[in-house]
């Protein structure tokens, strides 16, 4: 690390508009992930490079020749955002050491390298790239925005789709309750990789989420954030309700909000009078079929039991 670089102040060299996630993107009205992008860029600021996989947020934000991104940004393919970010980090490390004047760049210590992917790109197809990035210890903050399905390709299930949701590849039918699996626990997977800082957050609480982004980027090494981001199109609800449903998912315990440091839970957003998940399910078209028959009832109970178990593990109830 060049101490020269560390001592220099680069802030006056950076000049761009106020917003780093600019209006004009093509996200649907009420898009939860779009809010997440806004909060991420607000928290991270200008000295940031974003690596993003294919998915809604990339497609709505980068229709050539337009771009919503006020930060440096790269999209490559669906499954490699974490690897692309790893490569960027390695490049800046190399510049710092070998040739600080090589490019007009900041010292890599001050640089925020952030990979932001959907649940599909993160928990499914890109998990190997993410695993490698975490295991090797790259100084990258990985943020998974979770809208609980592959929205960009038309609402197919992912490993974050909750039990009972009807999607185009897990449709409810005469002999199907819809998706028959529970959400994969990405926070634990990240923590088990030895990731020092892991947190979950919801777009319903921007303050908390932004603080966690700030905390993450202030630390060295890999960091993992899971941010809950409802999608009115894929979930089938009125677009004005995004924040409300994100909050309700937290209040039912379906999406617990917590922080982990070095593999231990350090902070849990305790819930007083946790609401039954039924209240949340009722709000969305994708769960409508659950209220039609006994199989649906059973699925609701199964989901509730899964939530209760996790709540106990996490000490969620106040």
């Amino acid at each position, binding site marked *: 690390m060049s101490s020269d670089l560390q001592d220099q102040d680069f802030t006056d060299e950076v000049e761009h508009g106020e917003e780093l996630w600019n209006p004009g993107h093509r996200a649907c009205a009420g898009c939860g992930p779009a809010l997440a992008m806004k909060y991420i860029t607000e928290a991270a600021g200008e000295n940031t490079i974003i690596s993003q996989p294919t998915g809604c947020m990339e497609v709505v934000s980068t229709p050539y020749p337009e771009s919503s991104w006020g930060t440096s940004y790269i999209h490559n393919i669906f499954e*490699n955002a974490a690897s692309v970010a790893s490569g960027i980090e390695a490049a800046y490390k190399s510049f710092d050491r070998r040739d600080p004047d090589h490019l007009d760049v900041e010292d890599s210590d001050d640089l925020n390298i952030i990979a932001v992917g959907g649940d599909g790109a993160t928990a499914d197809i890109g998990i190997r790239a993410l695993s490698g990035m975490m295991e090797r210890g790259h100084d990258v903050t990985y943020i998974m925005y979770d809208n609980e399905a592959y929205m960009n390709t038309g609402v197919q299930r992912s490993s974050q789709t909750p039990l009972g949701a009807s999607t185009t590849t897990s449709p409810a039918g005469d002999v199907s309750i819809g998706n028959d699996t529970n959400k994969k626990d990405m926070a634990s997977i990240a923590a088990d990789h030895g990731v020092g800082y892991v947190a979950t957050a919801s777009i319903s609480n921007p303050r908390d989420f932004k603080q966690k982004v700030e905390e993450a980027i202030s630390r060295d090494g890999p960091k993992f954030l899971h941010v809950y981001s409802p999608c009115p199109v894929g979930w089938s609800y009125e677009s004005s309700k995004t924040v409300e449903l994100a909050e309700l998912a937290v209040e039912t315990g379906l999406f617990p909000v917590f922080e982990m440091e070095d593999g231990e839970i350090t902070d849990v957003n305790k819930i007083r009078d946790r609401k039954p998940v039924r209240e949340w399910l009722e709000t969305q078209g994708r769960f409508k079929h659950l209220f039609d028959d006994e199989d649906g009832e059973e699925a609701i109970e199964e989901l509730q039991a899964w939530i209760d178990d996790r709540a106990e593990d996490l000490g969620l109830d106040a």
Partner: protein
Amino acid sequence: MAKAELNPSDEQQVMKGTSAVAKGVMAADPDVISAYPITPQTGVVEKLSELVADGELDSEFIKVDSEFNAASTCIGASAAGARAFSATSSQGLKLMSEPLFTAAGMRLPIVMAVANRSLSAPLSIWADHTDAFAERDGGMLQFHAEDVQEAIDHVLMGFRVAEQVNLPVLSNFDGFILTHVQEPADIPSEEEVNEFLPPRDPEFTLDPSDPKTMGAYARPEHWTEARYEIQAAMMESKDVWAKTVEEFKEVFGRDYTEYNGMIDTYHGDADYRLVALGSMCGTIRGVIDQYREQGVDVGLVRPRVHRPFPTEEIRAALGDAEAVGVLTKEMSPGYESALAGEIKGTLYHAENQPPIKSFVIGMAGRDITAAEIGAMIEETMEASHPMTFDEQESWPQLREELLQTGGDN
């Protein structure tokens, strides 16, 4: 290859092909290296790791979990402005295929050494060109080395060209035949390389103080143009390559300038000409010598560069032949060997179209004997227009008895 005059400063070393290529990479001084082991390439990754571990090479070495992520990390590094290198073979190259196509589209000058090997199934670790040809249409420049020296030099020249035209490079050298052979080679000195290969100076990077969006999504009204730009850069790379081999000769003394560096010939004006890529050309030269002693006018035309395709050079090198035999270690099921098909296509607009026979040989490491090459020379001499689809390609090494019984007898 054209015999090189030795530079007095050159240090000749006898070492394994993979180690020699790694030393060539070291001379190019990459900022980031990211590679995953696969036979027969593994020696390159191992040697590079060792050079980094010993402090001889100051690069970030990313110990990736797969070739897929080797290519992907190189993409991130290259987009950030780094000189990035990787190496692979066969299944590894296949696993890189998706990111590599995007590296071309994003115009990132990553250089990769590819130790060529067949693709499963059946599983095989031995050499042929199936892997390289499977990546043919991505937009990567492709070179084929005949010997270890050329494999080293192609890496250096690869960076020089790639960073001028902003396209990735696959620098092919045959698995085992070149990777595991001990050959004397000149390892380029730092001074020479400094003169030949300046540090990378990219026009656009992920510089946070000058934000850009890279890898945007393009709708139909723009996508074609991005692809056209790749085509234009490929075409431009021919001139850049021609200049590069000239400069290379001045600095290193090795002469690759024949046919603008695109093609290497041996009795290239003979009546009958064989065409082949890579290491099998050594054996072919020996057989040509024997036949010439018996008064048969036969020669060799060896494309060193396969992408960009040496169109004009192929026309000049083959148009006036009596007949041509294309010996290839690849085939395109349902048609014919890709190389033979490409050469035929190239000659379509030439003044003359010599009869061309395609011979599929040497796949998955099957040895190519002098006697077999002799037989192919003789078959080529008998070639004449017109040819039926069946006649245009033969598989001289096919073991009919295995097809009959299914057993290994």
